[in-house]
């Protein structure tokens, strides 16, 4: 091997590998119409439906704004938690993850690009929700865009950690969608994604009060509805961080690259 070739080899273009994998992930996501529909369009559809059901004020703000904040929460969990968990189980069981491990693509680059790809999808979805809200109900854009972006990144990271943890315990690709939605849909109802929970029985509200989506929606409410900085919500941030770390630790110990079923 010539000196030149060795030098090229040492200077691995890590960034180029990351960008290559990110583009690949985006291609895979948008090419699959079912995934693109359920993950990207579903929250938009729900917003239109719920927006036509509720009127007046929720939490002292116009209903479309409160619903928008709730659906940002649901959309984030749907994309980063449900979408990621289902994708990972399908890829693991079909042998794609195992196949990728035999290539020089580093696992950290793979996971990192998958997370960023998920975040891109959610960011587009959030933008679409805001545009839809403005067009249909005249809702405002976030007054503090930086804080809003920070809240979204925090939420997506927490739900992605919980999504990979959940993927670690799901055994079959066929069951993954059912299991994930069995977790997500009740969670969304209990935490107020689809409307206010004040009139719920106390024990249902108590369950909702320990779930991470509740605190993410609190964070979004504070930033979007009341114009606070994201750092003004230490309780929400602490609970989200606890859930995120738990998901991460569980993932590190339990995640598998190889199919469970043989």
């Amino acid at each position: 091997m010539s000196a030149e070739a060795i030098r090229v080899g040492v200077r691995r273009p890590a960034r180029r590998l990351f960008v290559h994998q990110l583009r690949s992930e985006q291609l895979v996501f948008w090419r699959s119409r079912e995934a693109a529909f359920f993950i990207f369009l579903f929250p938009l559809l729900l917003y239109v439906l719920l927006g036509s059901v509720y009127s007046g004020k929720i939490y002292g703000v116009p209903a479309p704004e409160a619903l928008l904040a709730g659906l940002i929460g649901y959309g984030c969990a749907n994309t980063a938690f449900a979408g990621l968990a289902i994708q990972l189980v399908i890829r693991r069981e079909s042998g794609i993850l195992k196949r990728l491990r035999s290539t020089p693509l580093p696992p950290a680059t793979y996971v990192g690009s998958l997370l960023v790809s998920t975040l891109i999808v959610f960011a587009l979805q959030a933008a679409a929700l805001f545009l839809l809200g403005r067009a249909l109900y005249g809702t405002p854009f976030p007054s503090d865009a930086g804080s809003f972006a920070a809240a979204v990144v925090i939420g997506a990271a927490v739900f992605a950690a919980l999504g990979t943890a959940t993927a670690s315990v799901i055994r079959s690709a066929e069951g993954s969608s059912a299991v994930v939605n069995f977790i997500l849909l009740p969670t969304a109802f209990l935490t107020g994604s689809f409307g206010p929970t004040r009139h719920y029985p106390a024990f249902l509200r108590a369950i909702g009060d320990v779930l991470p989506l509740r605190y993410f929606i609190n964070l979004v409410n504070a930033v979007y509805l009341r114009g606070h900085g994201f750092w003004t919500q230490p309780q929400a941030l602490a609970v989200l961080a606890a859930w995120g770390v738990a998901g991460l630790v569980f993932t590190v110990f339990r995640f598998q690259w190889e199919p469970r079923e043989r």
Partner: protein
Amino acid sequence: MHAIEVSGLRKAYGNLEAVRGVDFEIEEGEVFGLLGPNGAGKTTTVEILEGYRKRDAGEVRVLGHDPERPGPDFRERIGVVLQQSQLWPNLTVRETHAIFAGYYRAPRNVDEVIALVGLVDKANARVKSLSGGQKRRLDLGIALVGDPDLVFLDEPTTGFDPQARRAAWEMIRSLRSLGKTVLLTTHYLDEAEQLADRVAVLREGQIVRVGTPAELTTTDLQTEIRYRQDGEEVLVRTDEPTRVLADLASAAVARGEELEGLQVRRPSLEDVYLALTAEEQEAEAEVEA
């Protein structure tokens, strides 16, 4: 230099000893066949060499690396075709190749690889529209797109119809002409006989015989000579076919007769393989008795 060196390799899953002390070496540029029935330990052995599993004991070198702690260029230099794996159903053949090509430092040209595996007509087809044989060729294509020195093929033709198998064999032969080292596992005897320079017969986690297909078939079993005499089939098994045949022939000539239906048959690899299996079953029967 050896592409692969294995000695004293052991691996157990709980109480099941899948690999029980395996030794072999593979030369660079060699096509080496690991042959054995299901459950013989072929896939476990190969997955240890590929770096998927940790061994319990033994020494393993693959392209100079320990696959449990491979250096940075190990995965640049191997290509893997797994026994069962699927790819993204909605991407095209070319897109799938291009994604994998992007993982390697010095990949081969994507269209060249697609041509090599015979998928030119399907380059723009979605993966989900391919037949089983075409999907297997795609698997091979993405294993070759990084231009590896060593290719692992785990049962590459299982489930193929005869025509697809012959096409796959041609492709595997073309790997040899590219100078690649190939480790092939199969439970098809004819496949090993057709493709491999050397074959190791694996059974219950141990290698029971290693050699070229020709060596395996000459060392173990006797040659069979068959003919008909007075309408009766006669079968002679011998280690000295030349002498026996000469005796039979001169006796027949002396009687002024023809040796009707004369056949001389060297044992096939299949005969050797079945004989090895039969030995084992007899040994087991004795142990149980």
